[in-house]
C-alpha cells in the first residue's frame, strides 16, 4: 500500500499538471521516465470500436487495440475521455455507459464503474482527477465523484444541462454546461467546490460552452460553440477572482489547452484545419498557425500537451470514419514524430505512461 501511495503521489501530480491545464511546467518531483503514450480512439458511434493504442517511445512502434489484446475484450462504444491517476487508467466509454479502470502501465483490466441510472445510460463524457478523486461529467446533468480506492461512485453532484469538459483551478472544478442535446443550449460553467463537493455557483459565459482550460493566473478560457446559426462561436476568458467574463472574441475553437503562457486551439465546427496559438492576455493570435513546418493536419481532433516537455499531441480524425493518426510537435511547432493508430478511428485523447 505504501508503495502504491508513493507512486500515486507522483502520478497525481503529473496528471494534475497536464489534465487540468493548470500550468506547472517544472514539477518539483521529477516524474518517472515517460516510456510511451496511450491514445484513446473514439471509434464510430454504434460500432463498438473504441480502441486504445500504445505507442512506445524507445521502439517507436504503436500497438493498436492494445486494451483488447491485453484483456481479451473490447472497450465498447464511443470512448470519450481518459485519465491516468494513482497508477490507474480510467477510460470513459460514453455510449456503453461505463468507465473502464485498468493498470496505468500495462492496461491490464481492473474493474468497471457503471454509469446507469435505473438501467439507463447517464452518458459519461469527460474525466478529470483532483484532490484524490476522479470526476466524471455525464450528459444527464451530473458530475460523479469516484473514490479511487474503492473504485465506486461516492456522489453525483448536480450541475447544469448536458455538462461536458472540465478544468481545475485552485480549489475549484469548472464544468462546461453545453445543453448540447437540449432544445435550447446552456451557457454556463458550473463551479464545484472541491472541499465540499457541491456546486457553489454558475458563471454565465457564452452559448453552448465546450472546451475549457485554466491558467496559473486564476483565469479560465472557455470555447463557446454558439447555435450553429444566429449565434456564432466565441472564445471567452473568465477572471476567477470575480467569476466575470473579462474578454470575448468571435473565434471558432474546438479544443483549447493552456501551457506556459500560451493557448493552443483546434478549429471549431466552421471547419478550419488550422491549429492556433493564442496569447492568453487578449486572446489574439500569436501567429497564424501553431505548426510552422508545413505539416498538414486534415482534421485536428484530440489535443493534449505533455506537461513535462510541452510537446503537443494532435489527433487527426481525418473524415471521422477512417483510421486517424496522432502527430507529436515540439513546443515550437515543429513535427517530432507521427503515431499510427490504424485502424483506430478519431483519436481523441493522449495520456503519458511513466514507468
Amino acid at each position, binding site marked *: 500500500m505504501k508503495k502504491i501511495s508513493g507512486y500515486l503521489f507522483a502520478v497525481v501530480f503529473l496528471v494534475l499538471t497536464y489534465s487540468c491545464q493548470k500550468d506547472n511546467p517544472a514539477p518539483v518531483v521529477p516524474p518517472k521516465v515517460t516510456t510511451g503514450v496511450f491514445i484513446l480512439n473514439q471509434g464510430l458511434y454504434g460500432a463498438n470500436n473504441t480502441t486504445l493504442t500504445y505507442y512506445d517511445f524507445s521502439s517507436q512502434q504503436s500497438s493498436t487495440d492494445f486494451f483488447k489484446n491485453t484483456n481479451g475484450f473490447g472497450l465498447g462504444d464511443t470512448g470519450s475521455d481518459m485519465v491516468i491517476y494513482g497508477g490507474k487508467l480510467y477510460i470513459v466509454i460514453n455510449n456503453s455507459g461505463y468507465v473502464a479502470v485498468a493498470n496505468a502501465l500495462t492496461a491490464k483490466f481492473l474493474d468497471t464503474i457503471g454509469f446507469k441510472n435505473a438501467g439507463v445510460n447517464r452518458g459519461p463524457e469527460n474525466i478529470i482527477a483532483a484532490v484524490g478523486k476522479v470526476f466524471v461529467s455525464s450528459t444527464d446533468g451530473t458530475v460523479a465523484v469516484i473514490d479511487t480506492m474503492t473504485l465506486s461512485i461516492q456522489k453525483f453532484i448536480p450541475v447544469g444541462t448536458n455538462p461536458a469538459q472540465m478544468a481545475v483551478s485552485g480549489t475549484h472544478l469548472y464544468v462546461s454546461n453545453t445543453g448540447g442535446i437540449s432544445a435550447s443550449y446552456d451557457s454556463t460553467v458550473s463551479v464545484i467546490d472541491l472541499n465540499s463537493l457541491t456546486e457553489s455557483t454558475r458563471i454565465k459565459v457564452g452559448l453552448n460552452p465546450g472546451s475549457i482550460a485554466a491558467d496559473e493566473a486564476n483565469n479560465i478560457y472557455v470555447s463557446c*460553440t454558439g447555435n450553429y446559426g444566429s449565434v456564432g462561436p466565441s472564445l471567452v476568458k473568465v477572471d476567477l477572482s470575480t467569476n466575470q467574463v473579462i474578454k470575448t472574441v468571435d473565434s471558432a475553437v474546438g479544443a483549447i489547452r493552456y501551457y506556459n503562457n500560451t493557448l493552443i486551439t483546434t478549429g471549431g465546427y466552421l471547419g478550419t484545419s488550422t491549429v492556433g496559438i493564442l496569447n492568453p492576455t487578449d486572446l489574439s493570435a500569436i501567429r497564424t498557425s501553431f505548426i510552422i513546418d508545413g505539416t498538414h493536419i486534415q482534421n485536428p481532433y484530440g489535443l493534449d500537451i505533455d506537461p513535462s516537455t510541452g510537446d503537443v499531441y494532435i489527433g487527426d480524425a481525418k473524415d471521422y470514419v477512417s*483510421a486517424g493518426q496522432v502527430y507529436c510537435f515540439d513546443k515550437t511547432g515543429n513535427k517530432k514524430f507521427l503515431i499510427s493508430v*490504424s485502424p483506430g478511428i478519431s483519436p481523441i485523447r493522449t495520456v503519458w505512461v511513466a514507468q
Partner: protein
Amino acid sequence: MPVQRLNQEALQQINAETLAGAAKYFSGVLIKDYGGIGGLQSISVRSLGALNTGLVYDGISIADAQTGQSDLGKFSATFVQSLELDLANPQQIPIPARLFASASILSFTSNTFNTNDFSRKKWIAGINAGSFGLWQPYAGLYLPVNKNMVVSANAEVTWAKGDYPYSIDNGIFSQKTVRSNSDIQAFQGEINIVNRFKDSAEWQTKVWTYFSERGLPGSVIFFNDNAAQRLQDKDLFVQSRYLKKYSPSTTLLVSAKYSSLYTQYQDPNFLNNAGGLNDQYTQNELYASVALSQRLGNYFALSLASDMALTHLRANISQFATPTRISLWNCLVLQFNKTHWQVNASLLNTNINDQTQAGPAAMNINKFTPSLALGYKPRPQSPFLFRFFYKDIFRMPTFNDLYYTYISNINRKLLPEYSNQYDAGITYSKTGKSVLSLFSFSLDGYYNDIKDKIVAVPSQNLFIWTMQNIGKVHIQGIDLNAEANGKFSSSLKWTARVAYTWQQALDVTDPSAAEYKNQIPYTPNQSGSAMAAIYYNSWSTGYSLIFSGNRYTLGENDPSNQLPAWNTQDVYISRQAHFSYFATTIKAEIENLFNEQYDIIHYYPMPGRSYKISIIFNNL
C-alpha cells in the same frame, strides 16, 4: 431494359411478412434490414443507394420526401399479385412522368386491379403464426357490385414480439441474450374500387392505410443493453387512375393522389432537459399526373406526361424549417418498334422549388435528364434478345438531408446527387413442352457512376453531422438471372429460379483518402438467391436460399471492419384441401434452417432459425 418479376406463386412460396422479404430474391439488390419483423427495410439497386429507387403501387409513386424512400416493411406481401424491379424506368406508355425520376423502380400491384372477373364474389382469410411471437391474421373480400364495378377490401394485422436470441461476442463479457424492445403491432388495410365504362375506359381508386407502433431495439452496444425508443406511423393515401383509349392509337392516363404520413419518434431516455424526445412529423402530399400516348404510323409512338406534386412537412420541433416543395416533372418518350429493333428514348425535365418557414431553403433545381434503351432480336422468333440502356438521372436531397434540425444550415446548399447507368445484356427465353416448359436466362453487365453523392459527414464531433455533395463512386457489375419450370406429368410440376450478382462499387472521391478505390460500405462483391419448388397434386414443397459475400462496414476496407459472408436457407411444405364451399391451404416453414447467426447491418443481429405455420381459407 432489364426487368425482374416475382409472380403470385413465387410470392406465396416466399411468404414474406413484408415486401422486402420478397425483393431479396432479385439480382443486383441490397436489402438493408435491421432485423426482426419491425426492423426498418430499404432496397438499393446496383449500389446506387436506396434513395435512388422509386416505389410504385398500382401505377402511382409512393413518395416520401422526408426520408427519400418509404420503409419497405410497411408493405405487406399478402395481397400483392406481382412484384417487379425495373432498371431505369418501365417501358410501357403512357405512364406518369414521376416514374422516370428514379434510377430504378420497384413496383407492385394488387390483385383487384388486374382482374377481368366482374361476376364472382371471392373471399380469403388466413393467418401466419410463427416464432418470436408472430401473429399475422388477414382477410380480404372481392365484391362485384355490377357488371362494371368491383369493390374489394382487405386488411392485415401483424403482431410480433421480436424477442429472438443472439449472442454478444466480447471476451469475458460475452453473453447470450435476446433482442429487447423489438416488438411491433401494425395494421394495414385497403379498399379498391374498379369502374369499367362502356367505352372500355377504366377508373381505379384505392384507399390505403397503415398504422404501426414498434420498438427500435437499436444497435447492440457493449455494456449497455438499454433500448426504449419507440416509433409510430400513421399513414393514409387515396389514389385514383383513369385510363381511356380514345382509339387504338391514342391513350390517356390521368392519375391523382393525396397522401398523409405521420411519424412519431420517442426516446424517453434521451438526456435533454425536456426529459426525453418526442418528435412528430407530418408529411402531406398532393400529386397529379396526365399522360398521353399516341402511335405515329406503323413504327413510332410518342408519349407526353406531365406531373406535379406539392409536398409539405411539419414537425413539433422548434426552429423547424417546415418546408414546402413544389415538384414538376415533364417527360417526352419516343418509341420505335420494327421487326428486329425496339428503341425507347426519353427526356425528363424536373423542376423543384423548396420554400421554408424558417431558415434558408434549398436552391431551385431545373434539369433535363435523358434515357435511351435499345433492344435487338436477330429474328422475330429468335429466343435471343440483346439490349442496351443508358440513363442519366439524379435524386433530390431529401427533407432530412436539407432541414434536419440538429444539422447546421451549411447543408442547405446541397445539390442533387447524379447517377449515370450503362447496361448491356442478353436474354434467352424459350418455351417448350412438358419437363421444360419455360427456360429463360439473362445476363447483364453494367457500369454506373455517381457524382455529388450526398454523404453525411460528422462536423464538429461525432454527434453533429452535415450533409455534403462529396462522394464519387464507380460501380461495375454483372447480374445473372435464370428461371425455369415444367411438368413431369399432369400432377407433378416444378419451378426454379436463381439470381446472382457480382459487383464492385469503389469510392473514388479523394485519391489521398484511405477509402480511395475501396469497396463502399455494406456492398458484397457477390450475392445471390435461389428458389425451387415441386408441386405434386395438392402437395407442394420448396427450398430457398439467400447468400451474401463478406462486406465492410466502413469505407476503409480494413480487416477490423469486415463483416462475414452469410447465407440463409428456408424450406416449406404445404398442402391444399378442397371442400364443397371452400378450399384451405396449410403451410409449414422453417426459415434460416441452419440457424445462421449474421448481421446485415453491423450490430443489428438477424434472427436465427424460426418456424412458421400458415393457414389460408378461400372460396377457390
